[in-house]
């Protein structure tokens, strides 16, 4: 009897797992910040793709960078009685009330990419990347690549005071700690833009003996690296060989540079935050397993060996 029971429940479970019909009646509301950057556009595209693949009915709301629009969207999701809500919060504060409303309606809320300052029992989980870890992966790559040789590093920071700039700097410095052969000789902000990345790199090159003194560049995002690569070329040096280039984000354009041998490595900030969120949600609906309060996305390292041309073609269509 026990065996039959077990078999029966296993079959039911398998049926749940295999049939897309079960997922089809899942309706999820997604409140996106807006279209502030190419990365966010890619996140929206991937969320829609993931929902379609899993047969989830996704209700999408664009908040145009305003929290009040997001709160409105959340309330309308609650009124519609969706099965779950994904939200990429535009700011960290002011969410308690609407999250409580969702909790009262027993609708699980999953935070994407950013977190909030509310008590953590008001949401199910947060899917974010670890910015410090990203910097760390970039730093480790550099440590391994120079393999003990002396190397002067210049750093292009993000916007001064922004959390990606602080954390990516911290993670990189942690990876370099104790490695006496590696030294960060100059560090300036490039405001996360190509123009400033290029301008600041030009001054680094002038200040460090025409660039002969620089062995590697670490940029807090790919756009600054792309600008800096042009500056290095204009100074008559070869980016990727004379000066190693490592950056973070993995936007399509850096793969073009890697394919041309002008950039060496990038750490991916994956725009696929919805995948792990839907995984957690499906597991919860299946047998009530609550996910951890923080799901860390993978910070994957790409180098020239990872067929950058192919990755570029894959990423190109995502709306970056």
């Amino acid at each position, binding site marked *: 009897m026990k065996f039959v029971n077990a078999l029966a429940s296993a079959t039911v479970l398998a049926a749940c797992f295999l049939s897309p019909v079960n997922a089809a009646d899942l309706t999820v509301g997604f409140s996106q910040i807006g279209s502030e950057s190419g990365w966010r556009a890619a996140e929206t595209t991937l969320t829609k793709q993931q929902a379609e693949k899993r047969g989830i009915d996704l209700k999408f709301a664009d908040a145009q960078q305003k929290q009040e629009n997001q709160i409105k969207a959340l309330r309308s999701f609650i009124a519609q009685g969706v099965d779950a809500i994904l939200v990429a919060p535009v700011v960290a504060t002011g969410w308690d009330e609407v999250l409580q409303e969702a909790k009262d309606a027993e609708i699980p809320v999953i935070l994407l990419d950013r977190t909030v300052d509310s008590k953590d029992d008001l949401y199910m989980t947060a899917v974010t990347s670890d910015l410090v870890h990203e910097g760390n992966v970039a730093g480790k790559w550099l440590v391994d690549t120079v393999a003990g040789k002396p190397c002067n590093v210049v750093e292009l920071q993000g916007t001064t005071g922004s959390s990606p700039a602080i954390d990516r700097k911290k993670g990189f410095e942690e990876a370099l700690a104790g490695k006496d052969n590696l030294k960060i000789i100059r560090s300036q*902000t490039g405001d996360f833009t*190509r123009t400033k990345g290029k*301008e600041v790199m*030009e001054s680094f090159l002038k*200040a460090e003996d025409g660039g002969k003194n620089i062995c590697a560049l670490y940029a807090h995002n790919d756009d600054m690296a*792309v*600008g800096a690569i042009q500056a290095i070329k204009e100074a008559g040096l070869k980016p990727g060989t004379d000066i190693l280039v490592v950056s973070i984000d993995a936007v399509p*354009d850096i793969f073009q540079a890697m394919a041309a041998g002008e950039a060496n490595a990038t750490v991916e900030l994956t725009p696929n935050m919805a995948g792990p969120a839907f995984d957690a949600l499906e597991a919860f609906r299946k047998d009530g397993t609550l996910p951890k309060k923080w799901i860390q996305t993978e910070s994957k390292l790409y180098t020239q060996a990872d067929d950058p041309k192919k990755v570029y073609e894959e990423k190109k269509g995502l709306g970056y």
Partner: protein
Amino acid sequence: MIRTVQQLALRLLPQVIALAIVLAMIAAVFPGFFSFSFQNGRLYGSIIDILNRGAPVALLAIGMTVVIATKGIDLSVGAVMAICGAVAAASATHGNPLVVTLALALATGIVCGIWNGFLVAVLDIQPIIATLVLMVAGRGIAQLVTEGAILTFNDEGLIFIGGGAFGGLPMPVVIWIVFGIAITALVRRTALGMLIEAIGINRRASTLSGIQTPVLLIAAYTLSGLCAAIAGVIAAADIRGADANNAGLWLELDAILAVVVGGTSLLGGRFSIAASLLGAMIIQAINTGILLSGFPPEFNLIIKAVIIVVILVVQSPKIRTISSFFARPARQNGGER
């Protein structure tokens, strides 16, 4: 003639001194500052960097000076830069020849300028509000053109405008110097400059005395739009892509600052394009100097603020009165222009 040259020299003296002091300060913290070399068919050095990186603000300052002289202001230039850069990039990726690309980009800037001029001159909206419209909406338009992404291109001709060299100087430097001289000649060798100053001092009186005020106002904003278009093409060509979010961001403020550092009053009237260009170079020299100095980035804005406050304080009318009190004989032929 000699008298005009003397007057010009006297007018530009405070800016020249300020620039010299800023350059001397940079040379003190970074000894290799004045060194030059010849590389890739062009001059290569920090001074050239300042001239080159300062090109967008210098170009914007030319148009901004004329607009401010009419007692107006153009806040939209940064956004217009983004739109025109986006148009140029979109045109280049469609495979249009360089002439068509440039014509489209400059025409876009001119249209934006005419729109601003129309709001100010015909509908009589205050300039700060009228141009705020395009400042806010402009980036949205640029994003529509680039579809939200950084639009990259490989058109060699267009890239040459940002990274090429002519006569040993980078193209952007050549463009802003030639354009600056051309516009100065246009307004100073004709009565145009005086008419613009008249509008700035008293628009109503100018209209009553027979000046075609609306036409001149629209022309001033159109010039500003054209300058923004050239600056936008240079900015896009420089990074081989149009970045709708960041191209020209806050540059309208740098351009206004350049005009103010150049000693032109925001209340309209007398203006000097040459002084504004010097102002633009002072600002860029400070920016480049901070980058070369190796200070941590947290200090960037503080250093910039302190230097600019000092320059403005030294130029303020009260300080001038005090200094002229001590140096009365030297102020005998104190022409302002």
